[in-house]
């Protein structure tokens, strides 16, 4: 499982692996497909410095900026995980210090105001 290459660049436009069939084997993705997918990711992220292509080597550059976006995405998810962890700790603390009645009262108050 670990050595499997997920993506392989291919110059043929055979429609790529698509991926919607749910197969887990490595898929061939075209450059266009990858650029589309990466731009999709870019839209998710708060602030990504997009690199403008200046060279002719679309493939290399696409991979480079794709790597950057992938990196940012991974960092962002890790940050979100950490936030959830911190919030979970905080909620644990709060739950242990207040009784059930106060909780209920607070909820109701916050809803009806």
């Amino acid at each position, binding site marked *: 499982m670990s050595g499997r290459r997920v993506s392989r660049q291919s110059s043929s436009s055979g429609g790529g692996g698509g991926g919607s069939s749910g197969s887990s084997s490595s898929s061939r993705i075209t450059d266009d497909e990858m650029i589309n*997918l990466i731009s999709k990711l870019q839209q998710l992220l708060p602030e990504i410095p997009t690199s403008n292509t200046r060279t002719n080597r679309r493939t290399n550059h696409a991979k*480079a900026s794709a*790597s950057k976006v992938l990196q940012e995405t991974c960092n962002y*998810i890790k940050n*979100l995980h950490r936030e*959830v962890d911190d919030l*979970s700790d905080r*909620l644990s603390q709060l739950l242990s210090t207040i009784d059930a009645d106060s909780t209920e009262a607070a909820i109701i108050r*916050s809803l009806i105001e």
Partner: protein
Amino acid sequence: MSTLESTPDRWKTVSQQQIYSMKLIQVLRRTDRHFTVRETADRLLAVSSGGRTRWSRAILSNRLSLNMMNNRRRRRHKKVRVSGEIRMKKKEAFDRKTRVLGELVPGCRKLSFSRLIDEAEDYIAALEMQVRAMSAVAGVLAGAGAGSLPADSDKLGCNN
């Protein structure tokens, strides 16, 4: 056929956040839970997903508490000696980061690249909602502890 329900945008509605917040408080108040707060929050998030995504199904398929499962995870670092071609190195960096992403999104280690991106997109939106909702819940509970009334109305669903 892209209704709001099937897109990552569904995580951004106020009602989605409100419902999650309320249910979270409901479940957390119980004294018989054997999942941690984090696990509870994640499982509820997965349930809220409606079973359409792989990451949500992966979270729910873990019946055991993560405390018991942590030992199982191993890291496999594979060092590959390659030629000096820049192209090869960039490809490897790309593959490596793709793999990391697949490890961060639950249940998505073996997905094709395109499906992984789809899952990540939804998962990120869900996580953002989770953060907003849990922050609001913490605010409400903190207000309960202090015995003071919350300043904002509709706190559990506020999104800025």
